[in-house]
């Protein structure tokens, strides 16, 4: 019951805060985690065995879907039914995937409109659905551990994720019944955990090398402000690539030219074990027992480092570039924080130390630090906080113009949220429609950038070439998600599009999935709508209370009673779970207090008018006084 709770004006309480929790989720390429923060103290939520990590692995079996360790265990006996590293395919089109398809241990097929589908155990699933399975597992772990319902989350994404991958991540959350409070960039989340925990201030670099993505961000940390100065990375470079290099070597040693899927998975498994062990050991032997043959492979750290050095060198290059984007020199950076399992490798630490001229910090577990930061942000968003995260967009946004040249509208490293407008014109006489092609990337030519969306602005007045004035506005919200609107300035014709990635899920697909795949979809949607109605009802009630406090004396006792009755009705509605009733009372409260609002406005106008009259009188007097003194002189 929230009857007659007293709150500060504007401090809308979060409905059902006691029974509902907002968590932080690190949805990783290799492993995922969920964490929860109370009073600025974040904690990873573990299972009964004390395990925090949930391997990002999903098995589609005849008798159900497995996620995490149970799925991982099935990758040998049911290798064609187990999906891992799905994050690498988020928001990717079939064209992008061809480049990395050879390195993925499952079959990829084109879906409708160039979208990717995986052929698994006779069904076709999208990367969004696979990710949703992982999120559902994390959600249910959190609900078990916290004994609360978990419907809202902060989810981290690589800073270098483009709009398509971000939208895909949000779609996956929706499918899992989670409302995304905010997408936070992984390095920023790590900085949050680090900054708050260690109380660091100054310029910091976050070097985040995960299973499948690499990010580097430069932040300024100052009195609770986390300001990202520049960010960069590679959306498909990580520990997975090291595994593939090692596995290729092992397979070559075995003399395999056309390895089966099972054999590839076994080789990758041996490679991963070897890579991890060689972070502490200097050499070792690994067995691959698959396809009816056992092979043994000697491998040492020197060989490993020779193999992967070009990839690490590439990350160092990107880091150099980002430091330059931030208009800094490497030696101005006060500390370097390592994030991601791959940063446990000595060669990574050595090369990062070489770039920055100092030993990197890693005293928070590099596997957990991102989830901890996400949990802190989830708490900050729902319960308030003094910290402030100011992030930037990692990639430039632009439009295709004549000859396939990109016209940039928003430059990379611009703080978000941001909105920029640019004017374009027609290039043919009588042209009445214009194709607007939105791209993301740093290259000059459209075909070298990532295509995000195309739409046609129609109804341009028929004019000579160059006369129409079409203003295109790009807006990125705090999640880094893009909205584009176009407006013809002469006629005012306007089109607004929520940019759906060209290679993502069509809205209809999304709806269909929500209906079919999610047994709780209806409940979840209803819960979200109820929450929204509650927030709105609470807001109306609190606004009215404030108005009564300020201007209540202009009401007669009878009027006041009418309003108070309506408020009591609203309070009752808010303590129920009946959304229609709350909506009904929102309208009723509005209608029944309209006269009060009007009377307040009238009085406010009069007061302002009197104030102005006195002000002008005073200024006249002052003017007279000044003239008087001037005369006297």
């Amino acid at each position, binding site marked *: 019951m929230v009857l007659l709770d007293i709150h500060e004006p504007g401090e809308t309480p979060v409905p059902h805060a006691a029974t509902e929790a907002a968590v932080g989720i690190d949805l990783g390429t290799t492993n995922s985690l969920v964490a929860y923060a109370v009073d600025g103290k974040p904690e990873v939520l573990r299972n009964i065995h004390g395990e925090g990590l949930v391997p990002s692995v999903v098995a589609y079996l005849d008798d159900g879907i497995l996620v995490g360790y149970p799925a991982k265990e099935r990758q040998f006996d049911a290798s064609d039914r187990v999906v891992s590293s799905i994050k690498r395919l988020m928001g990717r089109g079939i064209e992008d995937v061809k480049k990395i398809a050879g390195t993925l241990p499952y079959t990829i097929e084109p879906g409708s409109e160039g979208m990717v589908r995986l052929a698994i155990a006779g069904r076709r699933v999208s990367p969004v659905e696979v990710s949703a399975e992982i999120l559902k597992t994390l959600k249910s772990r959190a609900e078990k551990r916290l004994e609360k319902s978990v419907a809202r989350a902060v989810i981290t994404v690589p800073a270098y994720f483009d709009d398509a991958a971000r939208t895909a991540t949000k779609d996956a959350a929706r499918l899992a019944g989670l409302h995304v409070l905010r997408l936070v960039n992984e390095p920023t989340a790590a900085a949050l955990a680090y900054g708050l925990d260690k109380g660091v201030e100054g310029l910091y670099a976050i070097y985040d090398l995960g299973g499948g993505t690499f990010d580097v961000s430069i932040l300024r940390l100052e009195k609770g402000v986390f*300001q990202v100065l520049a960010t960069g990375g590679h959306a498909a470079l990580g520990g997975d690539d090291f595994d593939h290099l090692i596995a290729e070597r092992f397979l070559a040693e075995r003399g395999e030219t056309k390895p089966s899927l099972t054999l590839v998975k076994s080789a990758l498994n041996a490679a991963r074990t070897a890579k991890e062990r060689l972070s502490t050991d200097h050499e070792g032997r690994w067995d691959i027992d698959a396809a009816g043959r056992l092979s043994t492979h000697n491998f040492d750290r020197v060989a490993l480092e020779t193999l992967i050095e070009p990839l690490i060198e590439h990350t160092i290059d990107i880091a150099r570039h980002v430091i330059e984007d931030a208009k800094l020199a490497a030696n101005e950076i006060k500390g370097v924080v390592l994030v991601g399992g791959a940063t446990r490798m000595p060669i990574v630490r050595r090369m990062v130390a070489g770039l920055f001229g100092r030993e990197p910090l890693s005293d928070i577990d590099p596997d957990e630090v991102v989830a901890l930061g996400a949990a802190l942000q989830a708490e900050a968003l729902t319960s308030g906080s003094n910290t402030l995260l100011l992030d930037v967009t990692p990639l430039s946004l632009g439009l295709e113009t004549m000859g396939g040249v990109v016209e940039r509208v928003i430059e990379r490293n611009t703080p978000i949220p941001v909105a920029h407008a640019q004017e374009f014109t027609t290039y043919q006489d009588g042209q009445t429609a214009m194709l607007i092609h939105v791209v993301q990337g740093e290259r000059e030519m459209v075909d070298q950038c990532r295509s995000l969306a195309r739409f046609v602005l129609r109804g341009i007045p028929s004019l000579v070439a160059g006369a129409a004035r079409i203003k295109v506005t790009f807006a990125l919200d705090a999640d880094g998600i893009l909205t584009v609107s176009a407006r013809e300035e002469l006629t005012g014709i306007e089109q607004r599009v929520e940019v759906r990635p060209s290679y993502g899920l069509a809205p209809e697909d999304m709806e269909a999935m929500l209906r079919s795949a999610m047994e709780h979809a209806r409940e979840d949607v209803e819960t979200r709508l109820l929450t929204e109605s509650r927030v709105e009802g609470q807001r109306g009630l609190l606004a009215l209370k404030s108005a009564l406090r300020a201007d209540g004396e202009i009401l007669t006792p009878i009027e006041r009673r009418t309003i108070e009755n309506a408020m009591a009705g609203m309070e009752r509605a808010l303590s129920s779970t009946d959304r229609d009733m709350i909506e009904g009372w929102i309208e009723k409260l509005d209608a029944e207090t309209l006269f009060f609002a009007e009377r307040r406005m009238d009085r406010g106008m009069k007061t302002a008018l009197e104030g102005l009259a006195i002000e002008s009188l005073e200024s006249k007097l002052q003017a007279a006084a000044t003239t008087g003194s001037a005369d006297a002189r």
Partner: protein
Amino acid sequence: MNRNVVDDRNVKALAGAVKACWSCRGPVDVRAMFCATCDALQGPTAVDHFERLELSRTFDIDLADLDRSYFRLQRLLHPDRFAAKSAPERAHSLAHSTALNRAYEILKDPLTCAEYLLTCLGAPLAGEDKTTADPVLLGEALERREALADATDALAVAALAAAAERDAEVCRATIGRAFTGNDLKAARAHTLRLRYLAKFLDDARVRQPRGAARRAASAHGATT
């Protein structure tokens, strides 16, 4: 008679000075960020970038002041502060935060700040192209470009960049004096030159291996 005219004007000004709060529907000052009665966040008003960041309209902005003001206002208005609030407040917060970021980006960089200030003062640079630039500036730009094209190694490029950076520094100071002295003609001319220098520095950066320019520039910084 005359008196009535003045009163009419007062009423007009007043109509713009008070509006109804979207939340409690009572009167609220049009310039207020939050409703004095119910504390609901109002939409941003159309003010210039200086006023948005509560700074005086000048070219010589103290960057520490700019940061302080920007952080303070973002703390109040950023969407993260309104994640659990109602939809109208979330939308207003997004609009405020977007406007703050835009103002910050423009005022932070002396070149865009000078360009913007010129626009505010009714002497915008827009439309100014190479043909209307003064011949001395054109000659200088040409000379620099040729030197850059002739530069054979990274060291030579870095030296050119460092020289341009020194000139840009002097140019910024000159622009500052021009604005202080209210000499808009000079401010325009030197802002145009600064624009050339910035473009040149961008090109020079592309021409050299990463880090070299920084090293040269910081070496220079250490000696001055």
